[in-house]
C-alpha cells in the first residue's frame, strides 16, 4: 500500500508532463511567450494572443499588464519575452538594459490617441493644450475659468508607472518642451487603472482625466483638443491624419532580434490578423498610417 502510494506520487509529475505535451506534429512550433507591460495595450495584446493561439495551438502566450514601466523593467530583468509599451523607451532605460546585455528592439504595432475625458454633465466640449496644461499643473482650479460651472476642478492621472502618464506629462504638463520643469499639480489624484479613471469621471461632475482612446465609452465625454485654434476629436481618422494633437505610437520591445516563437508572434501581430485586433479594441493599425503618409 505504502509503496503503491509512493510510486504514484513519483509518477505523478511524469504523467502530468506527458499530458501537457500530447502528440505534436513534427515541424509544429511549440513554446511559451510571456508578454508584459502597458495597460493601454493589454486588451488588444490579449486578443492578438488569443487569435495567435488559434493558429499555433502549441504555443502558449501569457499577457499581463501593470504599466509600460513594468514591461520595460521585466524586459531588462529578462522576465518577459515581449514588453508592451505606450511610450518609447527612454535613453536612460536603454543604457541600463545594455549594461545587463539586453538589447531592446522596437516594433511600432499601432497608433493611439490619448483622449481627455470629462463628465457628461460638464458643459465644456473642447479645450486647447494650453488650457489642459493650466488645469493639470494646478494653475487653473475652477471650471468657471473655461466657461463651465462654478466647480473646483478635480484632475485625475494614471500612476507614474503608466506610459500614458509619462506621455501626458511631456506633451501637456511640460507642453512638449525639453527644458520645461513643470509637474502635475500635487492635488492630482493618481489612480491605478484606466478603468478607475472612467469610474471617477462618470460619477464626478468636476473631474477631468486622460486615457488611451480604446477606453473611451459613452459613459463619459471625450473633449475635442486643439494645439492652436483647430479642434479635433480623438477618433481613428484624426489619429491617422496626425491631426489630433495627442497621438502616439504603441510599441512592442524584444531582447535583440526576435527568434523562434517570439518572431512568429511579432510577425503575427504586425500581420493582418493581429492588426485587426487593434482595430477592434479601438486603436489605429499600422497600415492605415503608412497608407495615409504615401
Amino acid at each position, binding site marked *: 500500500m505504502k509503496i503503491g502510494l509512493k510510486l504514484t506520487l513519483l509518477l505523478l509529475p511524469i504523467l502530468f508532463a506527458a499530458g501537457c505535451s500530447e502528440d505534436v506534429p513534427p515541424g509544429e512550433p511549440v513554446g511559451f511567450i510571456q508578454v508584459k507591460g502597458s495597460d493601454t495595450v493589454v486588451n488588444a495584446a490579449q486578443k492578438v494572443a488569443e487569435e495567435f493561439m488559434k493558429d499555433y495551438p502549441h504555443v502558449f502566450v501569457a499577457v499581463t499588464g*501593470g*504599466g509600460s*514601466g*513594468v514591461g*520595460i*523593467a521585466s524586459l*531588462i*530583468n529578462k522576465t518577459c519575452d515581449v514588453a508592451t509599451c505606450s511610450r518609447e523607451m527612454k535613453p536612460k*532605460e536603454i543604457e*541600463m538594459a545594455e549594461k545587463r546585455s539586453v538589447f531592446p528592439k522596437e516594433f511600432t504595432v499601432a497608433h493611439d490617441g490619448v483622449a481627455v475625458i470629462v463628465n457628461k454633465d460638464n458643459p465644456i466640449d473642447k479645450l486647447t493644450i494650453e488650457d489642459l496644461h493650466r488645469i493639470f499643473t494646478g494653475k487653473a482650479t475652477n471650471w468657471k475659468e473655461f466657461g463651465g460651472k462654478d466647480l*473646483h476642478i*478635480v484632475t485625475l492621472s494614471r*500612476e*507614474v*508607472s503608466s506610459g500614458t502618464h*509619462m506621455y501626458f506629462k511631456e506633451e501637456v504638463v511640460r507642453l512638449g518642451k525639453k527644458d520645461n*520643469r513643470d*509637474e502635475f499639480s*500635487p*492635488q*492630482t*489624484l*493618481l*489612480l*491605478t487603472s484606466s478603468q*478607475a479613471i472612467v*469610474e*471617477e469621471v462618470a*460619477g*464626478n461632475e*468636476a*473631474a477631468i482625466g486622460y486615457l488611451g482612446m480604446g477606453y473611451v465609452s459613452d459613459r463619459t465625454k471625450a473633449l475635442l483638443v486643439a494645439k492652436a485654434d483647430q479642434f479635433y476629436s480623438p477618433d481613428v481618422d484624426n489619429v491617422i491624419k496626425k491631426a489630433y494633437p495627442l497621438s502616439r505610437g504603441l510599441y512592442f520591445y524584444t531582447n535583440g532580434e526576435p527568434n523562434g516563437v517570439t518572431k512568429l508572434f511579432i510577425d503575427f501581430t504586425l500581420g493582418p490578423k493581429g492588426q485587426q485586433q487593434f482595430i477592434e479594441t479601438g486603436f489605429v493599425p499600422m497600415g492605415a498610417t503608412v497608407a495615409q503618409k504615401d
Partner: protein
Amino acid sequence: MRRKISEYIIESLIKLSGFVVIIFVFLIFLFLLRDSLSLFRVYKVGEFLFGRNWLPISEPPKFGIVPLLLGSIYVTVGAIVICVPVGVAAAMFIAEAAPTFLKHILKSLIEILAAIPSVVLGFIGIIWLSPFLKNTFHLNTGMCGFTGSLLLAFMALPTIISISEDALVGVPRAYKEAAFGLGATRWQALWRIVLPAASPGIIAGVMLGIGRVIGETMVVMMVTGNSPVIPTSILQPLRTLTATIAGEMGETVSGSEHYFALFAVGLVLFIITFIINFLADSFLRRARV
C-alpha cells in the same frame, strides 16, 4: 529509547523553526537596510525624512516622505477612531450580553468578514462608498482619506473583536461574582471590573488591528486618490507609504535611485510596524501574567 529519540528530534525541529523565523525577520531587515543605504549614498537622509515633495520620476527626483508618512498616519488614525469603539463594544456584547445562539452566529460572521479579500473591499469602495461619501459631504471627490479609513476600520474589526472577546471571556468569574456580591449591577460589573481587568488584552487586540491597518495596501491604493500632498483634512485625497511602494514598484528598474527610495520607504514601514507589534506583544504578555 525510541520515544526519547523522536521526542528529541521533534523538539529540535520546533526549536529550529523558531530560529529560522528570527533569522528571516533579521534578513528582511538587513536587505531593506542595505538597499536603503544605497539611496542614502546619493540622497540625504534628512531630505528623505523631512522632504515635503515626492516627485520620483522628475529630473532631479525628490524623495521627501513627509506627505506619505502623514497620509499613512491620517488614514490610520481615522480608522482607529472608527474601529476601536465599535470593535470593543461588539466584543463586550458578544462576551457578556448576547444569548448563546446569537453569539455563535456573530462569531462566524466575524470570521467571514475577515475572509473578504481586500481587493473586493477596494472595488466596493470605488463603485459605491466613494460616490456616496462625495454626495453626503459635498466633496470635490470621494477618493479621499476618509473612504480609506472606513474600509480599513472594517478590515481591522475582526482582529479587534476576536482578541478583545477572548480577553473579556478570560477574566476570572470570581471577579464578577465578587462585584455582584457587593451589590453592583451587571453594567457596573462589566464597566468597572471586567473591562479594566481585560484591558491589556483589549489594548493588544487594538494594537494588532492598527498593525493591520497601517500595513494594508490594496484598499488604500484603490480609494484614497494617491495625491502626494501634505494632507490638511481626512476628507482630502492623500497618499500612503504602502500605496506608494505598490503603485511605483512596477515602474522602477532595479538598481535605480527610485528603486532604492522605495526600499527606504519599506524600511520606514518595517520600523513602524515592528514598534507597534512589539508594543502589542508586551501588552499581551502582561495580559497573561
